[in-house]
């Protein structure tokens, strides 16, 4: 029993190291299509998983336009799993979203 508890603690410790964290990628300025992986409404932030398996972390700015079928929509319209097209501008290693189009 003691041995089982000890093994459990060691295994849990290893899993703990592996479980934490989410990495993001930096890409060049341009337009990318992908799927919304996560929406952080409180920070007006989204994570987009692009078609070439990169994760973009995008903080909306006051200049970011968000549209669906050509019309401006509220940030609350964004949901996980939605297909989007994002136009980003790279400043240093920061990606500023210029526009986000909801594709569906």
């Amino acid at each position, binding site marked *: 029993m003691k041995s089982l508890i*000890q093994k459990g603690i060691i295994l849990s410790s290893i899993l*703990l190291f592996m479980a934490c*964290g989410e990495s993001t990628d930096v890409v060049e300025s341009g337009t990318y299509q992908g799927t919304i992986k996560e929406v952080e409404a409180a920070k007006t*932030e989204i994570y987009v998983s692009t078609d070439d398996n990169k994760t973009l972390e995008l903080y909306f700015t006051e200049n970011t336009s968000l549209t669906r079928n050509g019309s401006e929509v509220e940030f609350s319209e964004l949901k996980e799993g939605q297909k989007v097209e994002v136009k980003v501008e790279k400043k*240093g*290693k*920061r990606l500023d979203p210029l526009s986000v189009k909801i594709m569906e």
Partner: protein
Amino acid sequence: MTELPDFWRTEVFHPLSVHFPIVLLLMATLFKLISLWSSKITWDHGGRLLLLLGVIGIWIAIYTGNLADGIVSRQLCDPTVLKEHENFAYTTAWIFTAALIIELLMRYIDLVKTRIISIILVLLMFAGTGTLMYVGHLGAQLVYQQAAGVNIPSGDCAEFN
């Protein structure tokens, strides 16, 4: 004319809260290490108390860090450093939380109270100390290289007149 911003800004609560768990958790690790060899219960009990307070403190620091994140991210030139800071902060918090759970199990369940688990606990806390120091290093990079959350005065300091 530029105005001096209020000191009590949302992003300032993170640096105000983050240094307590750093000290508490480092001291907790030291106390628990000494308790492996010392028969004085002060080290063991003190280490437990420091660990408990440190774990409470680190989750408060993570909460205030999340508040600051939403504000400073848009101003950073390399937010990937912030992301790594955040990821390792969560890893550190979970490591010390796991250490606290083990510590409490050892306190209340005799079956768990063995020498080998005491050693595993200290090793876990050392691992947490390593990630804690790295989180601190990344936090310092954010402040001293990218001025995260820092007000930069105008060239003529007019706002201080």
